[in-house]
């Protein structure tokens, strides 16, 4: 009986009583809650716009006053010439980034793990983290310096060897390669942290047993290290797949131009141009919502798979 007593007393407090009793805690949370309600849930209410005929002159109020048009904006998007182009580009760029950018940090971690000198290893690690701290604007500056047509470094060497100048950043054949290459460059070092941590966690007894069995260092890598981090690799890959619709908006936005729209225009850049430049607010919102919904399904789905595999997902 006495065990239940506190619960009974708590119920007697009622809603206001509870609020008063814990008021200090609620006050502490209040600014944060206001932030989430205004700046996160406020825009979510704006999603209604996607189902309405919205006049830009009405401003935010138009979200309520506009006429319902059902799924017209979505139909317009799915039937438009752009649909297959931007969906294809988004998936192709993202896919290439996963294809090259996903294994790279794993390989780097394996190579770093073979380095005996701790000092050298630490130095290489610190240097490899550097691009992670550079802003996308700086990376763009570097890429322009490397690849610009008249004063670019790469073209300098092409011309030196008697080749023709190539306008890399406006050429459909090279643009995706530059995107993928610069992403690998910027993320390989930082991405290796998680795998190095996994390698550090491997039980040394496994290596000892392998040595006694006569395995050399390289055999140990393939039969001890890689199998031991395989679960981390699988989880990271699954979670990465959940982000496949994020092809890298900031990077593409800073580098692309109409000349390469056919290979570089992704959902996010299209939403930006349709929404904030052409002011087709309701249409751009519909396109953005389409992406968000697919993305939620992907993220939840990949998390469920990750969990099934006996790992904790992100949550």
């Amino acid at each position, binding site marked *: 009986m006495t065990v239940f007593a506190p619960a009974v007393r708590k119920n007697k407090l009622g809603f206001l009583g509870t609020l008063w009793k814990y008021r*200090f805690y609620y006050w502490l949370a209040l600014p944060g809650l206001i932030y*989430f309600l205004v*700046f996160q849930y406020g825009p979510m209410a704006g*999603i209604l716009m996607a189902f309405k005929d919205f006049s830009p002159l009405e*401003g935010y109020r138009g979200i309520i006053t506009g006429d319902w048009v059902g799924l017209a904006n979505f139909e317009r998007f799915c039937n438009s010439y752009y649909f297959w182009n931007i969906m294809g580009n988004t998936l192709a760029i993202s896919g290439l980034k996963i294809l090259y950018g996903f294994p790279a940090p794993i390989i780097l971690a394996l190579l770093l793990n073979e380095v005996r000198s701790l000092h050298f290893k630490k130095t*290489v690690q610190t240097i490899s983290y550097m691009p992670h701290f*550079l802003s996308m604007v700086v990376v763009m500056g570097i890429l322009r310096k490397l690849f610009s047509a008249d004063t670019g470094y790469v073209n300098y060497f092409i011309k030196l060897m008697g080749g023709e100048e190539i306008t890399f950043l406006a050429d459909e054949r090279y643009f995706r390669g530059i995107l993928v290459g610069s992403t690998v460059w910027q993320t390989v070092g930082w991405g290796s942290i998680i795998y190095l941590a996994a390698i550090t966690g491997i039980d040394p007894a496994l290596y000892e047993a392998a040595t006694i069995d006569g395995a050399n260092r*390289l055999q140990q890598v393939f039969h001890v290290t890689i199998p031991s981090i395989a679960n981390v690799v699988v989880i990271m890959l699954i979670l990465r797949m959940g982000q496949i619709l994020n092809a890298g908006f*900031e990077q593409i936005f800073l580098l692309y131009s109409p000349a390469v729209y056919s290979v570089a225009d992704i959902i996010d850049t299209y939403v930006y141009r349709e929404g904030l430049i052409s002011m087709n607010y309701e249409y751009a919102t519909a396109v953005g919502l389409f992406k968000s919904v697919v993305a*939620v399904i992907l993220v939840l789905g990949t998390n469920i798979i990750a969990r099934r595999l006996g790992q904790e997902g992100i949550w």
Partner: protein
Amino acid sequence: MTAMKIKTSRSYKVFNACNIIFLLLLSLSFLLPMITVVSGSIVGQQERLERGAVILIPHTIDLSGYRILLSKGSAIYPAYRNTLFLITVGTFLNLMVTSMMAYTLSKKFLPGRTAMITTVFITMLFGGGLVPTYLLVNALGLIDSLWALILPSLVSAWNMLIMRNFFYSIPESLEESALLDGATPFSVFLKIILPLSKPVLATIGMFYAVGHWNAWFPGVIYINSTDKLPVQNIMRNMIALYSAADINPEAMNDERYLYNPPIESLQMATIVVGTLPILVIYPFVQKYFVKGIMIGSIKG
């Protein structure tokens, strides 16, 4: 047996040497672009014309780019002032609101806690998107104000959950005695919790500060006046929009630069000035970031 052992160790030595050479080249590929930017910023126009685009070590050091960039009337000064405002005031507000809410959410006995966590959690999955957010910021009258670069991203749900997990690890007993002595949860939070949380505050503070330093897209959509743009946006305008002369029209009128403006040196100098702070501090703060990744991957 011994012969085989020598053989394997020899092939391993070869592998080791190749590995070290590869890692050295890789490190060079990370450093070289930054080195070319620095050397590009101190090459004079004359030398550039004579020697071509690629100059790793300039024969003479010409500081025209920096002279234009740093002389009176340059747009870099208001930009730095704006960025410093974002980093100090912005990061302070980020940390304050994040830690306060994280503390409340760490109290497992609190009624309504689950509802609050769900409220936050949903925003990690789903958001309103670019256009509705822009229209909201517009409706709130924040366009062309530095607050538009702070308020819409005031709290990162992810950072808050990391902080909440840290608060879980603080023993309850430390707070209980203070509460019994009549202290309010406010003063417990200020005088007991925050001082114990310096490591996590430093880590999350670094996340927010580097985020403010590197952010440029909010500046593109929310800021109209040049004198309200942060450093990254000035840099972007310099590099991408070819408005190099706009950075300091007064200095560009100097007859030394008028007919042969050192645009490229100026662009590179802007990158150097806009990147130096982060390049100087990152070797020291990276361990906080690594710690952040590790806390993030071990969830409570």
